[in-house]
C-alpha cells in the first residue's frame, strides 16, 4: 500500500480521463444509466472494466470509457455506509425536497415528473460513459461492455448529438478551468487540482472531505494510504459527477426574443433579435463575449476567453450584469473588491469542469421561428467537482437562480431561470427591462455520482466477493 502525497504530482494513471478531457475528438458519446441486478456479477464486470477505463495519462485513441456510481450502487456492491466521509449532498441525492428547492427543481422541473432519476422511476446505481469516433464503433463498444452476465440492467440510454453549439445556437463550453499541473493555461483559469480531484489541495490549500475506509476493510492494500489517518483512501483521484438532462425549447426561446424586439409596426427585427439573445447569454452566437465586442461580433479568432469584466464594463453597459455568463462565472466582479485578484480568488472557489454533450438534432433559429422545433433536444449537462455544495449547488442557487444576483431585484438567469423573470439591460440614460420571460429550459432527469479513481474502482469491484465470503 503506497502512501498518498497531497502535494504531489497528479497520478494520471489513476485519474479517470474525463477529468482531463471532454474527449472532443470523439464525436459520438452515449451515457448509460444502469441498475445493479446481481452484485456479484456486477463486481466481476466492474473489475474487468477497471482495466479498460480511459485515464488522464494520454490522449484516448479511438474510444473512451469512464464509470461513475450512485450511493445506491456503492451500497449494492457492499460498501458499508458507516465508513468514510462522502459529500452529504452526494449521499442525500439531488431529489430530496430541500435540494429540489435550493436547485430550483420545482413545478414542471420537479423530480416527480422526471424521465429518469426521480422518486418513481427505476433506481440508477451506475453511470457508464462511452465515447467513440463514429456511431458504429460506439455501438460495438456498448455491445462488448454490456454483454450478458454483467449483473446489470439498462435503465436509460442517453444518446448524444455532437455539436460545439448548444441548441439555441451559441457556442458552448468555452470558459473551462484547467487543473493545475495538467497543462498550461492563463492564471485566471488555472485551478488547484483539489477543486476537482479528491485527495489533493484545493483553492483553500486544504483537502476536501473524501471517503476513507479502514485498512482492515482493504486487506489486499488496493487503495493508497491517507498519510494523516493511515486509513485506506477510497476518494483519492476521484471526483463527483453531476448529470442533468436539460431539455431546450428552441422555439420558445427565439419566439420570445423575436416578440420582444419587434418594431412599432410589429415586424421582426433580426439584428435586434440576435442582440437580445446575445444579451441573455453574454456572448454572440459564435462565442465572442459582449464585453469585448459590444456592438457586434468582430469575428475574432476563437476561442475568446481571456477577459475580465470590471475594467471594461463594471456597470453592465456592454454586457448586462444578469447575463448568463456573467453569473455562471463572474470572474473579477465578486465583492468585496471587484476588479481585484482577490475577486478572482473567490471566483476560483466556484468553478466547474463541464463535460456535457448536446442531444437531439440541431435546428436553426429561423426554422424554429417558422413553427419547427417540436422534437426533443437539449443538453446532457455534466460537470465534475470536488465539493458539490460549494461548486455546483452554489452556482445553481446563489448565482443562476438567484433573482437578487449582483444587486438586482427580479432577475434570475435569463437563459436557464424559471418563468416570469426579468432581464435588466443596463443602458444610458436608463436601463431597458425585458419582463415575464418564459422558461426555455426544462429538467428531465438528474443525479449525483462518484467518479472514482481506477484503483478505487478495482476496490469497489472486489467488495461483492468479500461480502459473499463473509
Amino acid at each position, binding site marked *: 500500500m503506497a502512501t498518498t502525497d497531497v502535494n504531489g504530482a497528479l497520478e494520471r494513471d489513476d485519474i479517470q480521463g474525463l477529468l482531463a478531457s471532454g474527449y472532443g475528438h470523439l464525436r459520438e458519446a452515449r451515457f448509460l444509466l444502469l441498475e445493479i441486478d446481481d452484485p456479484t456479477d456486477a463486481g466481476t464486470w466492474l473489475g474487468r472494466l477497471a482495466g479498460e477505463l480511459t485515464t488522464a495519462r494520454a490522449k484516448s485513441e479511438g474510444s473512451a470509457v469512464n464509470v461513475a456510481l450512485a450511493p445506491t450502487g456503492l451500497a449494492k456492491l457492499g460498501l458499508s455506509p458507516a465508513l468514510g*466521509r462522502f459529500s452529504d449532498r452526494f449521499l442525500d441525492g439531488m431529489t430530496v425536497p430541500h435540494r429540489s428547492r*435550493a436547485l430550483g427543481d420545482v413545478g414542471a422541473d420537479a423530480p416527480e415528473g422526471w424521465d429518469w432519476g426521480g422518486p418513481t422511476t427505476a433506481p440508477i446505481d451506475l453511470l457508464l460513459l462511452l465515447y467513440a469516433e463514429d456511431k458504429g464503433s460506439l455501438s460495438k463498444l456498448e455491445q462488448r461492455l454490456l454483454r450478458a452476465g454483467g449483473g446489470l440492467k439498462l435503465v436509460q440510454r442517453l444518446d448524444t448529438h455532437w455539436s460545439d453549439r448548444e441548441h439555441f445556437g451559441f457556442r458552448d463550453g468555452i470558459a473551462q478551468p484547467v487543473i493545475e499541473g495538467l497543462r498550461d493555461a492563463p492564471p485566471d483559469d488555472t485551478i488547484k487540482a483539489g477543486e476537482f480531484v479528491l485527495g489533493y489541495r484545493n483553492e483553500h490549500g486544504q483537502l476536501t472531505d473524501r471517503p476513507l475506509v479502514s485498512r482492515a476493510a482493504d486487506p489486499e492494500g488496493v487503495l493508497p494510504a491517507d498519510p494523516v489517518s493511515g486509513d485506506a483512501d477510497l476518494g483519492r483521484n476521484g471526483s463527483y459527477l453531476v448529470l442533468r438532462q436539460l431539455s431546450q425549447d428552441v422555439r420558445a426561446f427565439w419566439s420570445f426574443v423575436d416578440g420582444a424586439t419587434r418594431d412599432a409596426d410589429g415586424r421582426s427585427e433580426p439584428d435586434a433579435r440576435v442582440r437580445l439573445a446575445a444579451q441573455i447569454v453574454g456572448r454572440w452566437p459564435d462565442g465572442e463575449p459582449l464585453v469585448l465586442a459590444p456592438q457586434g461580433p468582430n469575428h475574432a479568432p476563437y476561442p475568446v476567453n481571456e477577459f475580465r469584466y470590471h475594467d471594461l464594463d463594471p456597470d453592465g453597459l456592454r454586457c448586462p450584469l444578469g447575463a448568463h455568463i456573467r453569473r455562471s462565472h463572474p470572474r473579477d466582479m465578486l465583492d468585496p473588491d471587484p476588479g481585484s485578484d482577490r475577486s478572482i480568488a473567490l471566483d476560483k472557489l466556484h468553478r466547474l469542469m463541464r463535460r456535457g454533450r448536446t442531444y437531439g438534432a440541431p435546428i436553426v433559429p429561423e426554422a424554429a421561428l417558422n413553427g419547427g422545433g417540436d422534437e426533443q433536444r437539449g443538453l446532457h449537462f455534466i460537470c465534475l467537482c470536488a465539493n458539490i455544495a460549494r461548486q455546483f449547488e452554489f452556482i445553481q442557487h446563489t448565482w443562476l437562480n438567484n433573482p437578487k444576483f449582483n444587486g438586482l431585484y427580479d432577475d434570475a438567469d435569463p437563459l436557464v431561470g424559471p418563468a416570469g423573470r426579468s432581464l435588466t439591460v443596463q443602458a444610458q440614460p*436608463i436601463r431597458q427591462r425585458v419582463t415575464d420571460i418564459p422558461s426555455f429550459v426544462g429538467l428531465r432527469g438528474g443525479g449525483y455520482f462518484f467518479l472514482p479513481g481506477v484503483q478505487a474502482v478495482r476496490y469497489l469491484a472486489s467488495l461483492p466477493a468479500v461480502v459473499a465470503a463473509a
Partner: protein
Amino acid sequence: MANVRTVNPLLTGRRAPSDANAAADLPAPAAERHAPRQLTVTIVADIKRPQLTKLKHALEAMGADPANNATLPFAALPRTHFARLVVLDPAADEHGVPIEPHLVYMADVDEPQDADAALERCLEELADVAGAGLDQIFGACVGYPTPSRGSRARRLTFLRQHAVGTAAEYVNTVGRSVRQILQENQLRVAIEGFLQQRGDELRELSPGEVRSEIQYFVRGRAEPTWALSPPPSPGLGDRIKDCADLLALPVGLLALSPVLLPALPLVAFALRRDEKRDPDPRIAPTREHVLALAEIEDFGSQNQFSAVGFLKTGLLRRAIADVVTYGIDYAARHVFNHSNLAGVKTIHFARWVWIDDHRRLIFASNYDGSLESYNDDFVDKVWWGLNAVFSNGVGWPRTRWLFFDGAKAEQPFKDWLRRHQVPTQVWYSAYPHLTALNVENNARIRAGLAASDMSTKETEEWLRRM
C-alpha cells in the same frame, strides 16, 4: 409603447397626468422625526419539560404564517424588522450538569420615538398585540402566570423578568427604520413602473432631464415631504450619546494602559498555551440534524441562522470572550454601521447573547442567500472576526493567536456551525423579498431623488440604480 401619451414637462410644462402612475400609490409620509436606533429584544425562559414537544408543535404551526398567525401576528408590530422563536433542547454542560430547555424570543425593533424606556415600550406592545397568544407561547414556561390570572400586568412582569441583555449586536444600517425600508421600496417600484411605461421617450433625453422627469413624476404621486427629502437623521441626544460612546473606548484604554500593557503579553502567552492544548476535534453533524435544518431553509431571498454553544471553561476564555463581544458591539456601532460588515453585505441583523450564567452563547442572524454562501463569506472574508469570538467556544477549529487559522479550515468550520445550529421554529421578516443590497440601493435612489447639485456623472450613476 407607441400609444402611450407623450408627457414631457421639460418641453410642455404640463403636469404628469394622474393616470400615469404605474404602481400602487405611495404611502403616507414617514412619521419619524429622528432616525430611530435599533433595539434587540431577547427573552429567555425555561420550558417545563413535559410541555416541550407540544410547544414545538404549536410554534411550528405559528411558523407557517409568522406575519398573520392568530397567536402572535408579527405584522401587527410595525416597528419589528425581524423576529424569531427558538427552542433550545435540554443540554448538559461539560460537568454533566443538566440545563433545562429554553424558549428564546428575539426581535430587532426600531426604538419608539419619544420613549426613555424603549425596551419597556416594546414589551408592552408585544403584550398588547399577542395578548392571550403570549399564554399559548410562554404558558409552557416555568414561572408563567396561569392563564386564568394572566392579566396584561402579569404577562408584562414575566416578559420583563425574562428579558436578557445583548452582548453584541450588528445592524446592517443603524438608524434605518422598517417604515423607511418599506416606503423606499414602494418608491423604487413606482419609479421603475414609470421608467417601464415611458422608457421610449425618456431614452431620448439627457440624464439630467430623465432625473427631472422622475422627480416630476414623484412630485405628482407622492407626499413630497418624505420622498423628495432626505430620511430623518439621528436626534441630537442620540448623536451626543454616540460621540461619547465613540470616545469612551480610546479614553478608557488610555487610562487603563498602565495595567493593560504589561498584562497583554501574559494574556497572549496564556492564550497561546491554551490554544495548543485545544483538542480540535472534527465532529460531523448527524444527517438527521442537518435534514431538520435544511427543511426550513431556502424559501426566499433571506434566511435565518440560530446557534448555541458552550464557552470554554476558565476565566481567561471568559475574559477574552467578553472583551471581544464588547469590541464587536463597538465596531458595529461605529465602524461597520452602514451596509458593510468587513466586506460582507448580506447580513441584515445579528446578535450575540449570553445565557445560562455566561456558560452558553447564542448567535442569531438574518442574512441573504443560502447557508453555503453565508458560510463561504465567513471562511473567505471575516474568518478573523469569527475566530476572535467563537474560538472561545468548545470545539471550534483550532486557532493561532486568537485570530488566525480556525474558521479558515473550511470543512471543519462548516461542520461546527451546522452542529451548533438549532432549528428556528418561528421566523418573521418585515421585508422578506428584499436583500440588504436592495434595501441600500433603494435608500440611495431616494437620497438621489432629493439631492441637489448632482453632476452629470453622479446623475448617470444614480440612474443606473434603477
